[in-house]
């Protein structure tokens, strides 16, 4: 099967920065793919090259088998882009913007109008159809920019941090929408800073750091790569130093006289079970015990920290 996106040896050099340094990436049709990386890692640059907003320095990029330079028009019709930053003509009315955008993709006026109304209803924007974009709230602009990308029903939807600055309700409903879209066959490429979001949505994840891909795997495998585990333990009464000596061989973080501490251990050498056994053996009363931090987040941090 032709990959939805195939990137090989992709370089992007600005006069004083190398934004991408030999990136390779393959996204299969139907994937829900996450591109994760710290600020300035090169996510937006990668996406802009895919969508024709940025000229690559070297390398090959194809979308469903079409070269992004030689067959750029075939590529564009297959791709919908939700950019990181709002790029509206702020004086245009929302529904007009959608109808124009459909037109730019070659859709007839009647299809555009029907599709615009369908999307406005879907995203709860019907009563804002005739509002100028500058008069929408941040969350409404987010929804507007997503509807614009969907006008021509792209085969692959690329979203650059679509949930930045979005409230919890909207985030959940966007997740739901994206999952459904993906289930119906749309390939999705998503960048996000919310690890929880990537974990909840993506089947596969690539981690990018300083212009290089440092890991590509299924979300499940990435989480399984984590061999260090950490647990937060809260005691019913403050601990004594004597008790902590029991954990001398492990890495323990605690503040004196506090009833909370964190134990970090290597899963290959120590088991949860033995930690618990040793805790109970000290005779303390445990109030609460929970894993510290998000697991994917820890993989992410370990892969991207210098």
């Amino acid at each position, binding site marked *: 099967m032709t990959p939805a996106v195939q990137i090989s040896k992709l370089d992007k050099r*600005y006069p004083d920065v190398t934004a991408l340094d030999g990136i390779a990436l393959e996204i299969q049709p139907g994937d829900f793919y996450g591109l994760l990386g710290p600020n300035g890692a090169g996510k937006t640059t990668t996406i802009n090259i895919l969508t024709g907003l*940025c000229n690559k320095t070297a390398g090959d990029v194809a979308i469903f*088998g079409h070269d992004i330079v030689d067959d750029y028009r075939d590529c564009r*019709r297959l791709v919908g882009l939700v950019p990181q930053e709002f790029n509206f003509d702020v004086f245009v009315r929302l529904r007009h913007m959608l109808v124009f955008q459909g*037109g*730019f993709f070659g859709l007839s006026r009647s299809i555009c109008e029907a*599709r615009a109304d369908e999307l406005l209803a879907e995203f709860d924007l019907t009563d804002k159809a005739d509002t100028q974009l500058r008069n929408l709230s941040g969350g409404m602009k987010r929804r507007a920019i997503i509807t614009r990308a969907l006008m*021509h029903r792209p085969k692959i939807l690329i979203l650059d941090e679509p949930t930045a600055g979005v409230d919890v309700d909207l985030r959940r409903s966007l997740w739901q929408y994206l999952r459904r879209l993906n289930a119906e066959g749309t390939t999705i490429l998503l960048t996000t800073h919310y690890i929880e979001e990537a974990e909840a949505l993506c089947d596969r994840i690539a981690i990018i750091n300083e212009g290089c891909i440092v890991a590509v795997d299924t979300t499940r495998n990435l989480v399984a790569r984590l061999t260090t585990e950490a647990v937060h333990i809260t005691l019913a009464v403050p601990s004594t130093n004597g008790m902590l000596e029991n954990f001398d061989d492990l890495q323990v973080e605690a503040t004196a006289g506090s009833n909370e501490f964190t134990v970090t251990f290597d899963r290959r050498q120590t088991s949860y079970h033995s930690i618990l056994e040793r805790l109970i053996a000290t005779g303390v009363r445990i109030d609460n015990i929970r894993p510290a931090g998000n697991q994917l987040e820890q993989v992410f941090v370990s892969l991207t920290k210098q």
Partner: protein
Amino acid sequence: MSSSDEHIYAPKLRRGNFVGFKTLVMRECHRFLRVWNQTLVPPLITTVLYILIFGYSLGSRITEVQNVSYMEFLVPGLVMMSVIGGAYQNTSSSLYIARFHGNIQELLVSSMSSFEIVLGIILGGVARGICTGVIVSIVAVVMAGVQILHLPTALFFIVVVSLAFASFGFLSGLWAEDFDRLSLFQTYVLTPLTYLGGVFFSVGMLPVIWQKIAMANPILYFVNGLRYAFLGISDISLPVAIVTVLFAAIVPFIACCVLFHRGYHIKT
């Protein structure tokens, strides 16, 4: 790549994206028609003022120029000035603002070719040049009592000059990095060339050395071409004026296409 493509709306394009192109031209026209009081009325006011001041009041004290009254002499130049201004401002501001807000990306990610995008934006400027030219012509013709001798030639000059200055406007909209620079070209090049372009005088009225310098100003050729179409008089022979204006339209238009396709100032 066949049945799985079916849920996509956007048609696969064999020839060009004509619907996209048409949509863009319509959007560009919509842009200036919506604010007609900012785009179409100002050149009309300027023209009426010029006719009142230079035509009605001062004009009577100026002897005939090439056998026509000064008022009549003035009209084609005034029309040309408003055509140039209208075409230039439409593309320069449309493109600059689209770059500034980032909504130029709406076009870049669409399935339009760069040629269709450039031509679409420029035709918006041409439409504004023509609209302005026609409105100003009607008013000037009525106020000054002029008859247009060669209507097709007049339309030819209005259309091709619009194309030339819509292309120049496009280039400056691409080039300008900030709002101040957008007006630089207009202040330092366009306005002086227009005022020195034979709108208010015949080259023969200038000292010999200035006559030579004035001949290097392309706007002189456009104004005289239109003056020939209106009144049958000109400082420049018609074929020379036609060749000049075609050249002035085609060269910057090609430059627009090449620069835009390469992504000059629009792609990083």
